């Protein structure tokens, strides 16, 4: 049986915050701060240093169980963090990525650029989950077009 398909992708997400880079960086570096924005419904432990590991485990309400593991590789205080990231959902690897967070001074604020380069995997139930999501989308589309789905 062939393994589930994998897609490779680079995701880039950016924000400008009206706070200096050191402050924004601190929100990534301090466990209590990070828990406030990056982690929820989860147990969380964090060792923020090159070679250090950060783990979270939990489940969103009505959602699947997940585990994340981060291993820090490059930390330039106030400027850059590079880490390896793995996400497991219901025990199966779902995404494995290298993440770079860059903190660029912009005026009195910070331009944060997050780049996630990853391998994204179909889960074992990919087809069923796909079908359920698509059915739901079709119903919404039909409603938007004011026409019933035949049969």
């Amino acid at each position: 049986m062939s393994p589930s398909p994998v897609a490779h992708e680079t995701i880039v997400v950016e924000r400008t915050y009206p706070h200096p880079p050191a402050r924004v960086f601190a929100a990534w570096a301090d466990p209590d701060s990070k828990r406030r924005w990056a982690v929820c419904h989860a147990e969380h432990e964090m060792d923020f240093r090159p070679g250090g590991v950060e783990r979270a485990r939990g489940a969103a309400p009505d959602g699947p169980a997940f585990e994340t593991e981060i291993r820090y590789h490059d930390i330039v205080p106030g400027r850059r963090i590079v880490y390896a990231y793995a996400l497991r959902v219901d025990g199966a690897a779902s995404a494995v990525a290298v993440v770079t967070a860059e903190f660029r001074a912009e005026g009195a604020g910070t331009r944060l650029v997050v780049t996630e380069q990853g391998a994204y995997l179909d889960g074992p139930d990919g087809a069923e989950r796909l079908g359920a999501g698509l059915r739901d989308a079709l119903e919404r589309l039909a409603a938007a077009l004011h026409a019933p789905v035949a049969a």
Partner: protein
Amino acid sequence: MAQEECGPVGYPETSEEQFPDSSGIHVPFGGAAIERRHGEGERLDAGSPAPILNNMLNHEASLDLLFQSLADPARRGMVERLTRGPASVSELAAPLAMSLPAAMQHLRVLEASGLVRTEKAGRVRTCRIDAEALRTAERWIAARRASWERSLDRLGAFLDEPPPSSPDPGADR
């Protein structure tokens, strides 16, 4: 601050979470594509768009074909049936009380849009959902992007909170 959609997942199962940037019509090919089509401006990030979205945005003709293919109730019925698993042309035609040639005509439109793939083995033509943008792996990508968007929104809110130890000169005590 409400902790509505927490966690790293933005799991592909829930329609709302799949494409949170879309504005009402949740079509599997992504809200960004629809909004671009209606000229509502760039919904993608300032960084270069993910290649798969870029690919779709560069092929508006194929988007038109997709919408055309889904605008017909019989075709939507066929696609809905195929979400439950592959089917032969006659299996698709039967519930619609449709002749095989008519069904094939609809399937050709669906195939042209990339939503459905058919193959013939012997005398039976089997149809299945097969559009790269619908594959779970690609939808994980959209979910991961959505998860980052929410996390960075929460980071912004967290950064904007006043530090707990400093007194607020405007507070009544």
